[in-house]
């Protein structure tokens, strides 16, 4: 046996051990990551799943013209100022006839959401013949009563309901006069200060318009910049300078883009505050470096042999780029684009400066309507005092996560399917 073999044999066991250890470190790192993710998800889902259903109560509602103070349901003015809450109160008092005194009645009326009144108005507006009739309706409960029903036995004692209100709720629960159903308002309405009436559709639409503007601007500009820098630009100090700056820009804290947006788009160009157009412009500035860098990497990955072959066959520079390089680099560019978009979707800080952190009830219809975005909605709900908003916050996070996961999966799938290896 030679000396070298001898040496190898001696150290072999040690080297194997070292390799095992090295592998163990890797597994450890991944497990820590997975554990953190698991913790995050269990916490969010554990808190948030309750926001997806809601309780309503069955009440015998009489559309009494006198209590409503409406004699002609076709008169819009009367409809507008109708006293719908009185009708709901009366129905509740008819259900619990023993309740006396102002305080007691107030406590009883507080069980049903104020949304009930708006629903009655809508019903009366759509079918005026209801006036004077009695219907059994399932009406939304107020958030505190809703939370009480959703809580476990042990937690119910600490619910935000008085003892008297708790007895009423238990009575309703035992006689099956309350039922749980899907929380429609969560996906059909804008923001509200009443948790049971708040929804995220406004924020989803706001995010959609913002992303649309961002995508429409940042992808073409980013790809064009990358193609020029990679394929056409001369290699000199000036292009080096540009390259350094693009890399720098990618690391600039996002709030700075917000300040820039405030100064330029709102200050200089006089664009309105809180609109997705300005939000999209600011986020374009933020995602551009990401897209340029990933697009350049994708173009670099196209083997020179392809370019040379195309040139050898007489293709012009532009033909080479448009017909060979771009199609081959596109999967990589799209991946970069999607990751940039996902980043922009989760961004709050720059939007703070341009007024998108706002209470907006109406659903935006376009990029020029005031709107907020999903992460901002999470932030706004997280700082609300009502306990139900804690579950709403987690629900909004779940929706945001779903979008992010979908986008990232799309990026991975696209890469897998379109990727070509040489």
């Amino acid at each position: 046996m030679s000396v070298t073999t001898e040496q190898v044999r001696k150290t072999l066991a040690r080297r194997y051990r070292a390799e095992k250890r090295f592998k163990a470190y890797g597994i450890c790192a991944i497990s820590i990551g997975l554990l953190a993710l698991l913790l995050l998800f269990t916490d969010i889902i554990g808190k948030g799943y309750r926001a997806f259903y809601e309780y309503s109560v069955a009440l015998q509602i009489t559309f009494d013209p006198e209590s409503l103070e409406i004699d002609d349901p076709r008169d819009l003015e009367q409809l507008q100022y109708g006293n719908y809450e009185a009708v709901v109160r009366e129905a509740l008092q008819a259900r619990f006839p023993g309740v006396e005194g102002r305080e007691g009645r107030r406590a009883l009326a507080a069980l049903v959401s104020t949304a009930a009144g708006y629903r009655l108005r809508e019903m009366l507006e759509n079918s005026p013949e209801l006036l004077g009739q009695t219907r059994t309706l399932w009406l939304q409960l107020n958030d505190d009563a809703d939370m009480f029903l959703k809580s476990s036995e042990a937690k119910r004692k600490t619910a935000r309901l008085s003892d008297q209100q708790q007895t009423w709720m238990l009575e309703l629960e035992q006689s099956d006069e309350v039922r749980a159903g899907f929380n429609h308002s969560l996906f059909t309405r804008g923001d509200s200060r009443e948790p049971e009436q708040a929804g995220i559709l406004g924020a989803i639409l706001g995010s959609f318009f913002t992303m649309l503007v961002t995508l429409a601007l940042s992808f073409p500009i980013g790809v064009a910049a990358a193609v020029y820098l990679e394929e056409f630009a001369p290699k000199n100090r000036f292009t080096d300078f540009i390259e350094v700056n693009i890399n720098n820009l990618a690391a600039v804290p996002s709030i700075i883009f917000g300040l820039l947006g405030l100064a330029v788009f709102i200050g200089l160009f006089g664009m309105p505050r809180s609109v997705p157009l300005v939000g999209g412009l600011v986020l374009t500035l933020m995602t551009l470096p990401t897209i340029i860098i990933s697009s350049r990497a994708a173009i670099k990955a196209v083997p020179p042999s392809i370019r040379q072959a195309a040139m050898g066959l007489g293709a012009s520079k532009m033909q080479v780029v448009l017909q060979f390089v771009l199609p081959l680099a596109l999967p990589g560019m799209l991946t970069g684009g999607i990751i940039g978009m996902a980043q922009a979707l989760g961004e709050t800080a720059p939007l703070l400066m341009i007024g998108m952190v706002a209470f907006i009830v109406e659903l935006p219809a376009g990029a020029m309507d005031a709107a907020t975005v999903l992460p901002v909605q999470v932030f706004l709900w997280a700082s609300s005092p009502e306990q139900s908003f804690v579950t709403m916050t987690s629900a909004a996070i779940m929706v945001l996560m779903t979008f992010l996961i979908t986008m990232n999966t799309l990026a991975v799938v696209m890469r897998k399917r379109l990727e070509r290896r040489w």
Partner: protein
Amino acid sequence: MKNTHKLVLAAALALSSVPAMARDTVSIVGSSTVYPFATVVAERFGRNTSFPTPKIESTGSGGGLKLFCQGVGTQHPDITNASRRMKQSEFELCKSNGVKDITEVQIGYDGLVVANSVKGPDLDISLRDLYLAMAKDVPNPNGTEELVANPYKTWKDVNPALPNVKIEVVGPPPTSGTRDSFNELGVEGGCKTFPWLKAMKDQDKNKYKSVCRSIREDGHYIEAGENDNLIIQKLESSPNILGVFGFSFLDQNRSIVKAVKIKGVSPNMETVGSGEYPMARSMYFYVKKAHVGVIPGIQEYVKEFTNDRAWGDEGYLADKGLIPSPKNERMKWADNAKSLSSMTGKEFE
């Protein structure tokens, strides 16, 4: 490539659907303390009238006034909320930018509470206790008139009547308006009870401020970030910790936390409204008169806000934790709001 064309087209359509500028929605900015109340009014206003729901940005009192005073024109906000009164300097800024006629309306009070978990002990402290427990520098415990770095470790050290637990208070960071009020109303309120410190105010105002409004940084005061819900969660898990936050959070979480009494007075609608509870601040909003009549709905929104149905003793804002002003004050401010009388500048004297 075809898909890209479609996307660009869709974006162009989305952008062109609404013409720019001209605003028909009331734009409100300002304090995050007033935000939970103003939004409730705005929402009701939007639902009950034919006007669109006003847009409310939460920018902080200072930030709101800065935006508000930027000028007259649809790109500037119509109303700003503030958890403190407008300062003279802000009034001057407004004036220099052409915002000359401003109507001031006080909407009620926000109490600042010190609270602990319902599982913790019932506490009753004085502002002086609070000052001694929280300030960076306190009078020497041996009674001489000199300042020493805060030596107190437990509540019992501060006041023998209090339990023997480590002083730990969770509260907002310096950037928060709630922290400013805590410093001014709580810590300074206790500081003033020492006559020689109070006398310092006239001699050396800056030194007085730095002594009476600074919070200790040796770990007994824990900054919890801007989110008051986090403070509540923290209190729930550790019964010996105290927390500082706004009254509405106490009101919404009474099953989890309870208020510490200040000299026997616990914060509630009556004690805060009457001024008996010492830590309360008034909240305001300011209306730009030049926009009334230009942007539809401003006057109607103000009317809704200053209605007893909203800000009264039994109003829906009280349900959200607003502490109403006394009736006569409310009537005065409501008149002010109705007639849109301008601020004269005398308010600052």
